């Protein structure tokens, strides 16, 4: 074998090998952005509408349901509690008159999520259906996503939670970042997120979730027709949580 043949064989082997590996990874969907033709996530874009006029001040149904469903670490210490969803009271003043309202805050599942952009291990990523999730088995706990999130919607599991409310869902381990994942496990089964279901069960229906790409969905109709607001729209992150009455 002369030098020319050697380079031909070596080059061909490398080319075939790398393209084969790439093709396998692409087909199995392990390359971000790659799609599998019959993926149930394709073509959907989940969004949320929160109607603040329906949110009752002392109601904590959504918070409790989320905490139970996802085994969210709640230590009753504001420094280290994790809140995938939380409620605040907001006062707005015009002159001498002031009004107060309850506002529900959670991950905005941004279309351009800064948390996913900065994650050094791609543990935080946006699914094809627009839900921003965290792979807890990959997160190294650097907390850069908490720094990058302009909505203070990301939390860090500073310490272990001993009791484990929902044994159907994984226990949360300390040392990783967390945020609302829109109950992606439920959505994948065709169910509603725990907070939406709980809010609906208490009869308020202040939180709605739906496919924004489906023009017939309630969420899409409200977004198109009503005066909805998103948090810090000027940042260009394109949140997918819309507020009515903010």
């Amino acid at each position: 074998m002369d030098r020319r043949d050697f380079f031909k064989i070596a080059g061909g082997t490398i080319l075939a090998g790398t393209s084969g590996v790439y093709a396998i990874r692409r087909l199995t969907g392990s390359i971000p952005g790659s799609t599998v033709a019959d993926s149930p996530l394709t073509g959907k874009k989940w969004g949320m509408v929160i109607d603040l006029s329906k949110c009752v001040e002392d109601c904590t149904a959504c918070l409790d349901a989320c905490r139970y469903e996802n085994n969210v670490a709640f230590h009753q210490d504001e420094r280290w509690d994790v809140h995938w969803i939380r409620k605040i009271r907001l006062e707005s003043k015009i002159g001498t008159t002031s009004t107060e309202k309850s506002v529900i805050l959670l991950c905005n599942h941004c279309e351009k999520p800064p948390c996913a952009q900065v994650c050094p291990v791609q543990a935080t990523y946006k699914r094809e259906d627009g839900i921003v999730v965290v792979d807890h088995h990959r997160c190294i706990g650097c907390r850069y996503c908490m720094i990058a999130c302009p909505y203070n919607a990301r939390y860090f599991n500073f310490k272990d939670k001993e009791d484990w409310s929902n044994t159907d869902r994984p226990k949360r381990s300390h040392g990783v970042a967390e945020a609302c994942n829109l109950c992606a496990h439920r959505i994948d089964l065709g169910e509603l997120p725990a907070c939406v279901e709980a809010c609906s069960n208490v009869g308020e229906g202040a939180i709605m979730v739906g496919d924004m790409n489906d023009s017939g969905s309630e969420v899409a109709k409200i977004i198109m027709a009503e005066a909805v607001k998103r948090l810090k729209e000027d940042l260009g992150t394109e949140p997918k949580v819309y507020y009515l009455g903010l």
Partner: protein
Amino acid sequence: MEIKFESLDGSSFEYRVMMIIFAFFSVVGLLATWWVIEKGIWVTGMYTRVPWGLQIVMAVYYIGLSAGSLVISGLYGVFGKAEYKPFARIAVYVAMLFLIAGLLSILTDQGRMDRVFVEPFVHFNLQSMFSINPILYIGHILICIVYLWALFCEKKTLTKVIATLAFGWAFCVHSGTGAIFGFGARVLYESPLLPASFVAAAMASGTALMILLIVTLFKITKRHLDDELIIWLGRFLAICVLVVVYFLAVENAYRAYVVELRHAAVYYLFGGIHSLLFWIGLIFIGCIIPMFILFRKKTGKSIRWIVLASSLVIFGVLCERYVIVIPGLTNPPELFPGMEITFSAIQEGFASYTISFLEVLQAVGVFGIIGFLFGLGLKLFKLLPTEARILDPNI
């Protein structure tokens, strides 16, 4: 003139005591880190509103010292100032050690240290400054190793090539570190000027560190050191500090001028303990006094005064790192402009942060490890020159 290098004998009482102290610090730091791993990061005092603390401050500080030290080695390798050749080896070695210190500080700050050695390389994210920086850091260490080898083997051409590469790389390393903050979403972080001001502070602290180290080492080991060499470094340090002050002035003037940032500017400059560190620690102790010492004819030529000024700069830049990292976190993002949050389950408004004892122990541990490796390097390698004399009397 042929410059001879030698290693330390390492049999003196002082050397042994120094090594025992560094080893003790290392053990204390390792125990503190073990405790943090065992219990969770909450034991360090960091919490939801302030998820980065002293370890990140120290990491940025160490990386700056490293980049700055490497610049000093470049005086010989890049700019051909042969009289600074005696310091080149030690500068590169120190640069390598401080980068390791920075990496150790970052490592011990991670929630899942066990994943740090695999995940960032398997799931590399080109869009993240946190992914790009490890490449710069590892490259920096590798360059330092080759650079040291070239210096040890007296390979002139390779030294010049690698020194130029190292010089440029040091700029990239610290610009990259600055970009972690400067390209961020927090009001007090976001600034395209930050990478450049990081480089300026790195050069100031690195030069100050080298002055302190060289003078101390030469004095302890009773070697001849021409004052003029240190005086020139002192002048260089003064200019670096002046550049730091300029960047600080521009950045804060911008924040104070732009209406939407004014609130944050007021908090930064007058909002708490960090403001005291800014004005007293950084501006007064770290910049004004050293500049006064270094620019003044009489004190600027006194080695004692230059060493004092260098110590103050090293302290000042540490304060600078603190006032970059911490106020950026304690200053809250304004989610609802013009409205007030009257109830929340988490701490709203300005947050507070206090350095915990455990964090200090971790930082002491990293310092101990680096100190120990430095001592070991002096004993194992021919890092120290027999003397450092001025070659050109008109310098």
